[in-house]
């Protein structure tokens, strides 16, 4: 004899399970595409300490809240925005790779660094908790300056943790440099012993630059707005492959050297309105160099 009662009980449990599961997949669908905070923490993270200065931008797994986090040393500020005038500012600190932020009226944020990403949870915002992930925003910044004895002018372009630089005296000394930014440490190298080591302090960069043998100078540079930057042109002049570099200061002052084989001469004047210049009767265009560009051939 087969009895129906237990089957009905089993069926109703199964039905309720399916209903709940479907409701959850509908409600939490965006969350499934974002790595969960603790799952990421249990994996082997590539880097777990926060950079000295960085911006992180992201959103909650369910797309309800946008999260923007600015790191400045050990201090951290964040902005939560859920639209409809629901915006909250938070302040806090970073310890190693762990972020803890609070606000006066309740909402809090905790997060941890995993490589270029941050994972965490927003708590007590609109009466709910939201897991979120945010990616480190790549910020491009130009530092320009001179050596302390005004022997050379330099321009360093940083893009995230990569950097490219040009140093020259406008006549015979010039070097291209390539390197990286780790925390507040800047380190670049070039051909024939050229190098630059420096540290970032606020809006300034201090260090030592070496353009070649016996040409080592202390320098200071500062964060500079456009048109400051590194500019480059690779052209053929009279059949000679010529590379021209310019270090441009924020006031428009430009110092550059053209190199054709073993011959070096002052670079032509660069029209900063359209990056064009004229050499030997022909018109050419230079290009601004970003930190990620390759300026030193391996």
């Amino acid at each position, binding site marked *: 004899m087969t009895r129906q009662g237990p089957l009905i009980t089993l069926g*109703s449990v199964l039905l*309720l399970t399916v209903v709940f599961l479907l*409701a959850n997949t509908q409600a939490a669908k965006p969350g499934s595409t974002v790595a969960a905070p603790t799952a990421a923490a249990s994996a082997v993270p590539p880097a777990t300490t926060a950079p000295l200065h960085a911006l992180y931008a992201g959103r909650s797994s*369910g797309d309800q809240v946008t999260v923007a986090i600015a790191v400045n040393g050990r201090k951290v500020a964040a902005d939560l925005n859920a639209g409809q005038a629901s915006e909250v500012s938070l302040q806090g600190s970073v310890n190693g790779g762990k972020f803890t932020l609070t606000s006066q009226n309740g909402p809090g944020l905790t997060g941890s660094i995993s490589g270029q990403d941050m994972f965490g949870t927003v708590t007590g915002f609109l009466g709910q908790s939201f897991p979120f992930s945010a990616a480190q925003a790549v910020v491009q910044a130009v530092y320009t300056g001179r050596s302390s004895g005004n022997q050379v002018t330099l321009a360093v372009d940083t893009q995230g943790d990569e950097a490219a630089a040009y140093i020259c005296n406008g006549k015979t000394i010039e070097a291209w440099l390539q390197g990286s930014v780790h925390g507040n440490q800047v380190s670049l190298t070039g051909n024939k012993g050229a190098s630059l080591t420096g540290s970032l302090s606020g809006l300034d960069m201090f260090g030592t630059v070496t353009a070649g043998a016996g040409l080592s100078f202390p320098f200071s540079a500062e964060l500079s707005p456009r048109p400051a930057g590194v500019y480059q042109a690779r052209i053929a002049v009279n059949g000679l492959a010529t590379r021209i570099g310019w270090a441009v200061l924020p006031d428009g002052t430009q110092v550059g050297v053209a190199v054709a084989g073993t011959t070096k001469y002052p670079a032509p004047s660069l029209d900063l309105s359209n990056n064009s210049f004229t050499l030997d009767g022909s018109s050419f265009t230079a290009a601004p160099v970003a930190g990620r560009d390759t300026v030193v051939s391996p």
Partner: protein
Amino acid sequence: MTSEPVAAYPARDQYARPLLVALLSGCGVALLLGLYAKLHHPTKYALDVGGFSSPLYAKAWLTTAAAVFAIVQLITGARITRQAAPAWMATVHRWSGRIAILLTVPVIIHCIYALGFGTYSARVIAHSVLGCIFYGAFVTKMLCLVRRDAMPKWVFPVMGGVVFVSLIALWATSALWLFATKGVHS
């Protein structure tokens, strides 16, 4: 090939197959739940029952309610087969069981969908394993009841005991732990 009639053990063939089906189905359910909970990427977020301070407390109180009904199950289940048992006792047993199991459904969905099969502490491992055992045993018991006449008498006390003990252990490793560490409130 004709089989030899085994006159001495007529009951064995009589219930062997339905019992085996019920037991294997229960094992399959327990295994599937465990595999899904382990392999499904936990969302950390799931729908929950309103009116509580957090999803954790909603789950704790639902489990507590289920545990209370489970005690009703134990009391009625122990007397249900006696000759002197009143007719309402079977009804109470059935309905308290149905309510108890339905109360656990939102909880288990939250557990396996949002959290998954946890292994980060002894309590969590025990809870995860017990959760799988509980639903496996429940399915086995229901399937045994479908063919009640074909089952040996000991099946129901044993399966009922497994379901009861695993549910109380589930409650102890989750709700009791929460109440003890975070306090008893809604």
